[in-house]
């Protein structure tokens, strides 16, 4: 009688020559593949930080607190780019979160069954479109059709508010923010859809039973239950927006400056890396790598916080 139902008879190994090493080798190979991911990530961090270290050393804290970026003078202050990244991402969130919530609520609560598939599909299609195509479309179609008129409108009627001060430009924080919003809507909405789908139906019915209108049910049950998940989805969308390069590079205006008005051109961390990399040499390149490191750090922190939240949420 064999000791365990799954232990293979020892004799077969020797006979067939499939050594007892085969299993261990295979397991080792699998484990190494997994470890490779960790090693790659570690090497990524070490290599880039190492390259950027001289610049961090020579600039000190001014690297992130100063907005003077002048490669020929050896001055590398990345504050303008950090500001631009955050501003465009915030604008994108302000636009995208309500729209994503609306879309996901529609798909989980309101939509008739027939529409659910096609509309969900169409929104997910937005996620599949590569960012360079967003950039191309944004510059040649969205800019004249919507961004410039909207910017003109905001400056004309709301220009007394500092963030809308003119002269307005479609190619600005605002323009980049709008295109980023379109790009992160599918991410946020698909995650929210998953979150809302896990809300148990009897809680919904309980709300109805207590006389709630549909919206009240949504507010009290779905949104309340899914709050952590929604926040986590929003943060993941934010992480994506922070790292987006191409569409922003084409629509932000490539101006190294900090401006309170969102209708003015600016710059972002990822965009400056993409734009200035090709003609940069020596210390300039190290500074750009340094910006990459800062961007990476910010994105990782936000992503990890989002996943921690989602993890907490998934354990009721």
């Amino acid at each position: 009688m064999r000791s365990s139902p799954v232990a293979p008879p020892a004799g077969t190994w020797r006979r067939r020559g499939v050594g007892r090493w085969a299993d261990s080798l295979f397991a080792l190979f699998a484990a190494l593949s997994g470890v490779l991911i960790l090693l790659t990530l570690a090497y990524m961090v070490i290599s880039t930080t190492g390259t950027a270290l001289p610049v961090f050393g020579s600039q000190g804290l001014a690297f992130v607190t100063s907005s003077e970026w002048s490669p020929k003078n050896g001055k590398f202050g990345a504050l303008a780019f950090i500001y631009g990244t955050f501003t465009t991402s915030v604008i994108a969130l302000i636009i995208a979160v309500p729209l994503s919530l609306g879309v996901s609520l529609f798909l989980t609560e309101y939509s008739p069954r027939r529409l659910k598939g096609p509309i969900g599909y169409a929104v997910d299609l937005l996620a599949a479109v590569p960012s360079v195509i967003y950039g191309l479309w944004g510059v040649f179609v969205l800019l004249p059709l919507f961004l410039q008129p909207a910017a003109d409108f905001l400056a004309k009627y709301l220009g007394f508010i500092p963030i809308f001060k003119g002269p307005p430009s479609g190619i600005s924080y605002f323009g980049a923010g709008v295109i980023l919003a379109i790009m992160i809507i599918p991410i946020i909405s698909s995650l929210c859809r998953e979150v809302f789908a896990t809300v148990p139906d009897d809680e919904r019915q309980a709300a109805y039973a207590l006389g709630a209108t549909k919206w009240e049910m949504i507010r009290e049950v779905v949104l309340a239950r899914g709050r952590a998940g929604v926040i986590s989805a929003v943060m993941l969308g934010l992480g994506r927006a922070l790292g987006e390069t191409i569409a922003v590079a084409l629509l932000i205006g490539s101006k190294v400056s900090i401006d309170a008005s969102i209708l003015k051109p600016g710059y972002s961390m990822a965009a400056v890396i993409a734009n200035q990399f090709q003609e940069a040499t020596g210390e300039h390149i190290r500074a750009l790598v340094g910006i990459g490191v800062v961007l990476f750090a910010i994105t990782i922190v936000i992503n990890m916080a989002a996943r921690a939240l989602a993890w907490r949420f998934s354990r009721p």
Partner: protein
Amino acid sequence: MSDRTLPISDSAGALGERWAGGRLGAGLSLRDCRPTRRRVWRDRRNKALVILAVLITLLPVGMILYHITSKGLKTMDWEFLTSPMPLSFRRAGGGFLNALVGTVIMVGLAAAVSVPLGIMAAVYLVEYGKRNWLAKVIRFFSDVMTGVPSVFVGLFVYTALVVQFGFGALMGAASLAIIMLPIIVRSTEEMLKLVPQELKDASLALGAAKWQTVVKVVLPSAAPGIATGVMLAVARAAGETAPLILTALGSYQLTAKLWGEPMSALTLAIFDGARNPFAAGQARAWAGALELLLIVLVCTIVARVIASRSRIKR
């Protein structure tokens, strides 16, 4: 009490009817508990807002598809698909062949490296590691890696490889592989988890070694799901631009040289076209965008078709 049925809380009303027989005591029924007009109005308004949100979101989808198709089709023809770029952007004619070849080569190489490695890593996570600390760490950092900005991956490959060896297709492929790897690991892991334990037990019981079980039973069963994940990763890699700017650089030449010489890619060519004032260059960019979009959409749709057709049944 009117007989008008409230559209919203009808379920509450109906429930009430069934339970309380329409009565809640002295002459009262749940139907009397109608929401105030204000609540009804708010409910209707929010419904309208939600529908408005959907319409606003669908607008860009439609516009992007429409514009790319209409502008791209104008320039897309056989010459476009089969000839390399002309010497300068201002010249009409020519095509994006070198860009297409570049994308195919780099994505192909990246897949050749990341697919086996990713599958093996997922095998480790599901079959060997399961819940031990190494598996948890790998899972966590895989998730972290999916969120790394692609431009940072490009910077890393630049500092690690390009500085030593120059720009080239291999470097571009390396950066794409790093981007694809965590996606493949996570999606393969999900698929492998769905393979029924009984299948694996049966195989082991019949004398197969663990590695044989994995290779000949588990992986083939999960193959459709794995293929889905791979297709999605390929679609993602085909659409990446930023890492390629820093590693493959882009060029006008139709080349298959893997290192030492910059290589073009579809995304890079479109990016240059977008920063171009010349009508000919822009026309080619639109056609290139159509080409890229078709590739990406085909990959995504094929992935979904595979996933829906061959779901593993428990």
